[in-house]
């Protein structure tokens, strides 16, 4: 999981503005239903949860099932009242948390 998540957040916004955020993480989202070349089931290994916090407060979250496509992509919105930092977290089935931060200036 060396690859950095790709995140699109505007650099600045007006107070009260609803900004659009796009995130993409490189991850196979192994469903647990796929068979390898030898015919054995490949064990499930997915990102089962994704969260977006802003200045420590939860802004958006989701629980994911194997029906989310590989390289999970999310686009959602956040209304901003102040400058601050987004913290994005992806939780893998193996317990690993992948985190990334982005800052935004709100005037």
């Amino acid at each position: 999981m060396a690859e950095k998540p790709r995140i699109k957040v505007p650099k600045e916004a007006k107070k009260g503005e609803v900004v659009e955020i796009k995130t993409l993480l490189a991850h196979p989202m192994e469903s647990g239903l796929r068979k390898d070349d030898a015919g054995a089931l490949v064990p499930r290994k997915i990102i089962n949860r994704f969260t977006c916090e802003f200045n420590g407060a939860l802004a958006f979250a989701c629980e994911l099932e194997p029906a989310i496509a590989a390289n999970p992509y999310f686009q959602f919105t956040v209304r901003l009242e102040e400058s601050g930092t987004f913290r994005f977290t992806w939780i893998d089935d193996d317990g690993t948390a992948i985190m990334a931060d982005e800052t935004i200036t709100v005037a």
Partner: protein
Amino acid sequence: MVAPTAKEKKMGALSRRAALALGLGTAAALAADPARATPGEADEAIGKFTGGKAAEPGPITIDLPEIAENGTAVPLTVTVESPMTASDRITDVLVVADGNPNPRVATFRFTPMSGRAEVATRIRLNATENVIVVARTGDGRFFTARKEVKVTIGGCGG
């Protein structure tokens, strides 16, 4: 009825066995693909989300292609009309695909910071099936909408 001869008995047994085998084969062929959830499973996932409450048709837009040639990554956008204020907002949105091996797809959690009850992602669809969206409001009401997608190549198995 004349008592069957030993030979007839044997034939009868054979044909019964053949019929049974045929019947089983046909039943297996007719039975839903084991990789496909039954409608009951989708209903169960929805029932768990709503706590058994009925969901009424609501202001939900499901943006999905009519035909998905490749089921491994089908773009989905869900928009629920809502003022998204602290007192009047959508809190949770469940997405279910009733023909997938596991009908649950995702549950999205919105907050008073969300601004809009809108989310886009890419999902796996196994076959031609319904994508069902259920939204919960802050005051515990449920809205639902569904859309059928025709899938050319399934995106769940091998």
